[in-house]
């Protein structure tokens, strides 16, 4: 029942959103392109001097840029994997009590409700060598406590911080996917004398495959672009060992005042994520087409 006037009305309804997107995305994109190609500081912001692709060359030749890339990739990959593994295990193991007592979800969800930046600040207290409970109890029980935030340990400390805050997200996705598997399927499998492990590996996990992929993807993206908790917990300290890509861009902009370079780096990041997202979309529609064909 699609008529022409309806579509016209439909376009009208899209106008506010599209206008907003044009103002807040295309204008910045334009600014980005100009500044990425210019030599510009805070003083010469209104009169950028075009220098071609020099900024991109500077960024690509900067070892700190590459170490920031490596940090973000490693951080995103590791946290996504650990969060999903833990979340999946918790969702399946705890499902009998979580289904019965709904309030347990609220408790497990609470960490996600707190701002990541504040969680970073809170860990400054938790890990503080004099005021923090964790070093206090570790020293009390084992005699020593590691320096959580020095160059050697900071990366893993941050991984644990991120994992503890966002495992609930993976848990929640898996919980919903797990309870939506119909009980008839489980009963049928049990009828065939399949054990609990076999049902898990052969039936339940394959049925949750799509959710697992989505959870991994979302958690990787969020880990890759991490800024808040890393910035408030270690700053860019710990010998530069915790500079994520977002922090690198922020720092070259505000601290260094190298606007052109910062914008070039963010443009690189933007286009890389576009390519990845586009490839993801292509892959998805290819799979769907194949499924339809099969």
């Amino acid at each position, binding site marked *: *029942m699609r008529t022409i006037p*309806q579509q016209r*009305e439909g*376009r009208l*309804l*899209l106008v506010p*959103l599209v206008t*907003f*997107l044009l103002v807040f*995305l295309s*204008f910045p*994109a334009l600014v980005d392109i100009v*500044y990425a190609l210019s030599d510009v500081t805070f003083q010469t*912001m209104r009169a950028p001097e075009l220098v071609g692709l020099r900024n991109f060359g500077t960024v690509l030749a900067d070892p700190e840029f590459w170490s920031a890339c490596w940090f973000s990739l490693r951080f995103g990959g590791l946290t996504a994997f650990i969060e999903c593994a833990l979340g999946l295990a918790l969702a399946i193991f*705890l499902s*009998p*009590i979580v289904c019965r007592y709904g309030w*347990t*979800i*609220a*408790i*497990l*969800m*609470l960490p996600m*409700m*707190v*701002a*990541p*930046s*504040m*969680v970073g*600040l*809170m860990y*400054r*207290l*938790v890990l*503080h060598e004099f*005021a923090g*409970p964790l070093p206090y109890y570790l020293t009390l029980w084992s005699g020593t406590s590691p320096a959580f935030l020095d160059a050697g340990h900071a990366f893993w400390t941050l991984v644990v911080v991120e994992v503890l*805050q966002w*495992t609930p997200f993976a848990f*929640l996705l898996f*919980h919903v996917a797990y309870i939506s598997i119909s009980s008839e399927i489980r009963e049928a499998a049990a009828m065939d004398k399949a054990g609990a492990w076999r049902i898990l590996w052969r039936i339940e996990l394959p049925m949750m495959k799509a959710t697992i992929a*989505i*959870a991994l993807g979302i958690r990787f993206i969020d880990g890759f*672009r991490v*800024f*808040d908790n890393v910035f*408030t917990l270690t700053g860019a300290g710990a010998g530069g060992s915790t500079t994520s*890509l*977002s922090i690198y861009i922020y720092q070259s902009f*505000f601290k260094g005042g190298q606007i052109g370079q*910062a*914008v070039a780096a*963010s*443009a690189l*990041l*933007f286009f890389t*994520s*576009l390519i990845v997202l586009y490839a993801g979309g292509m892959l998805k529609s290819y799979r769907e087409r194949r499924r339809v064909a099969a």
Partner: protein
Amino acid sequence: MNILRWLVFGIAAIAMNFPVIVTLITSFKSAKEIAMNPGLIVQAPTFANYARVLTDTSRFNIYAYLFNSTVAAFIGSFLALLLTLPAAYAIVRTGVGKKHLLPVVANLRAVPLVVFAIPLYMMFQFVGLLDTRIGLGLILTIVNLPLSLMMMVNAISDIPGEIDEAARMDRASAFVILRRIVGPVIRPAIVTAFIFGFITAWNEYLFGLMLTTRQAVPITVGSSFFFSASGGGVQWGIASAVMVLGAMPPAILGCLIYRQLTGSMTAGAVKG
């Protein structure tokens, strides 16, 4: 077996909420006790830290930070709904925008926010929106658009087409249908989307850090002020009280709607 489950639940709950627990406990300790006793048992609980934070606003004014966060988060969440509700209706009922607009907005969620921060800083400086609550609210709208749109699309897809078909036969305009029919039917989804957007916007840090300096500083940024340089190190008790107050609004909202949140958040995630 269930005892084991409760044990695992207890350990997970404590580990995940550990920073919140520690902060809450520390906020009730006096400065003297913090220096002597970093443990988790408070010997002499006191409200002095809260009293100090709430009455002494000469250096850092927590009311201003909380107010800024409230206004900016309200704008960010409300405006996102205002923009996405009609768009979602058009997308679901007429199919316009399904092919390009929907994926573009949904993918915004995956773009690192810092990419927008620098050009928007320039743009805001140009039009005088730097360090204003409205400016911050406008940016938080961008942050909220993807999930808001997905949630609205899902909610409207669930309404049977016959309901608004009848109204359309009577030549009711789309605006009237949205306000009189679709809006009321999906009100629960709208409330959930609003609260979820409010929490997301309240918890945002990067834009607050980059785009505000004095007038419009949100609580996420303001609370970090209590950690930096006050001569003689951080006053942990006071800093903890600030963080408890700053983390409370989203935590309470989250607890109020956690049941709906589970469903809608996963819906947004799965279809995005």
